[in-house]
């Protein structure tokens, strides 16, 4: 219903995996991310996220996959429903 179309070429995110990459443990991964931010202010949370992105990008390794992830993430910003003042 958003009427939004992704402003990027088709297939840009085709390199991202479509299977269950969490081996059944998605809820535990989400919980560990939330826990990592407990007690941090907004700046420290953003700084933590930046460091996490750097570490995880290195773990991914493949620059094309990292680029595809960036494309997917950018394309999903400011969807209907997210609060723009908080993004």
């Amino acid at each position, binding site marked *: *219903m*958003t009427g939004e179309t*992704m402003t990027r070429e088709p297939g840009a*995110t085709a390199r*991202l*995996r*479509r299977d*269950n*990459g*969490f081996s059944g443990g*998605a*809820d535990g*991964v*989400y*919980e560990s*991310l*939330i826990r990592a*931010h407990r007690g*941090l202010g*907004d700046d420290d*949370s953003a700084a933590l*996220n930046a460091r996490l992105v750097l570490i995880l990008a290195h773990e991914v390794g493949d620059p094309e996959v990292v680029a595809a992830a960036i494309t*997917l*993430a950018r*394309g*999903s*910003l400011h*969807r*209907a*429903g*997210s*609060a723009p003042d*908080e*993004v």
Partner: protein
Amino acid sequence: MTPPPRPVPPGAAGRRPVVVIGAGPVGLTCAIDLASRGIPVTVLDEDDTVATGSRAICWAKRTLEIWDRLGIGQRMVDKGVTWSAGRVFRGDRELYRFDLLPESGHRRPAFVNLQQYYVEEYLIDRARDFPELIDLRWNHAVTGLDQDGQGVSLTVATPEGERVVEAEWVLAADGARSPTRTRMGLPFPGQRFEERFLIADVRMSADFPAERLFWFAPTFHAGQSALLHRQPDDVFRIDFQLGPDADPELERTPERVMPRIRAIVGEETPVSLEWCSVYAFRCARLARFVHGRVVFVGDSAHVVSPFGARGGNGGIQDADNLCWKLALVLQGAAPESLIATYDEERGRAADENILNSSRTTTFMTPKTRAERHFRDGVLDLAAEAPFARLLLNAGRLSRPCSLAGLSLQTPDPSPPPDGLRPGDPCADAPVVDAAGRAGWLLDRLGGPFTLLVFADGVPDPGRLAGLAPGLAVVVVTAGAGAHGPPGVAVLHDAEGLAARRYGAAPGTAFLIRPDAHVAARFAGLEPARIADALARAGGRPDASVGRAA
């Protein structure tokens, strides 16, 4: 090795074997399960009405299978609304649809929705099928409790005055605010959540599908989420997330509730409000469920949020786990220490339910900007990126807990990659009996301990002889038309689904507990190992024939 059950005399003189406090779904299920095993039960309830409002409504496949064993599953399914699918929306955009039971070949669906007052009515009717064994006492409020090592002495306020009721065992099924728990001074530690929810049951003619509908940021409601379920009689359950600052007294008034309903169904549809409540919830549990001769079952032992339907279904599984053990102890066929394994096994389930429920709540109620960014990021990505749907948590719906690795189960040195492990709940499958009648495998499991044997064809009676007395034997064959020796049920696995779901090759055997969980798996018929596993599963690991022989 199992001595024949000692008949338990009705407790007219002296102690009653079991007194259940609370005639809700869990207490009544306990009473019927115990009676089905020949144990007399007295049920005390402080009033004489079934539940007000629909309360628990979502009954899971496993619960229906337990009620099948107790002879009341079909009535629940006939009246209830069957569903297996759910949809998750953001605003009015559907993010995805999921199916909790995407395969056929199961007798029961993933869920049936049925108001708690119907569940209680049907269980009461079923309990009345055991007039010699179940003594239902309405308007009997427990006012005092004392126990020694041999039993429990209850003081009970009755319409005829105060009475003292002596019991060998007491099951406290008296709910989330358990007076028994308070009376015994037991702490109930846990986490209280600030978020308030409005829950409303409305009767209306509406064409919502028989699916679980969940909205994040619904267009019809200013709060963060809403949940809708269809119930029988054109009743719908709608759950509105109100936020932490909502005024419970104000929000439950019809003047506040009806506009929220109208926002969903419009002004034209006739709507009547059946019941509503504003609630906050907590996740909490007793540290131990067994306190001497008092055993806590259901909400008195553990509470969770309603998202995931883990409260009522968890309680029914408590009953399923406890009652066969209690029956064996009362019949002198197992030591009292078997009851401790109820705490071990259902404690694990309670922890699992609390973990899932807490995680859902965390997702639904982000508390900081960082949490909100993660939550909204998942929602923004979910329609497009399948991985985000795995993170999106609108409720993890009740599934039976595996008891793998706990003390009654015999470890499996080489479990198959696909199939059931010791501790897993038994899977259902369509089968055909020797007379050619189609039926279901789960109807043959549960009751006594059972050896489930997979075979190509007609089993050799000699190989089934010499197994433990009292052990039922069910043979599942790949070929049709096999007949077994007397006392052995032979079932044809017509579609091959039983062998596939159990991960069984011809010759594989499983020891099945009375609550239809796998206790042990064997690569072949090895009487000594089977006897050892049976002794262990019955709480007598040192009393095995296999070891004594």
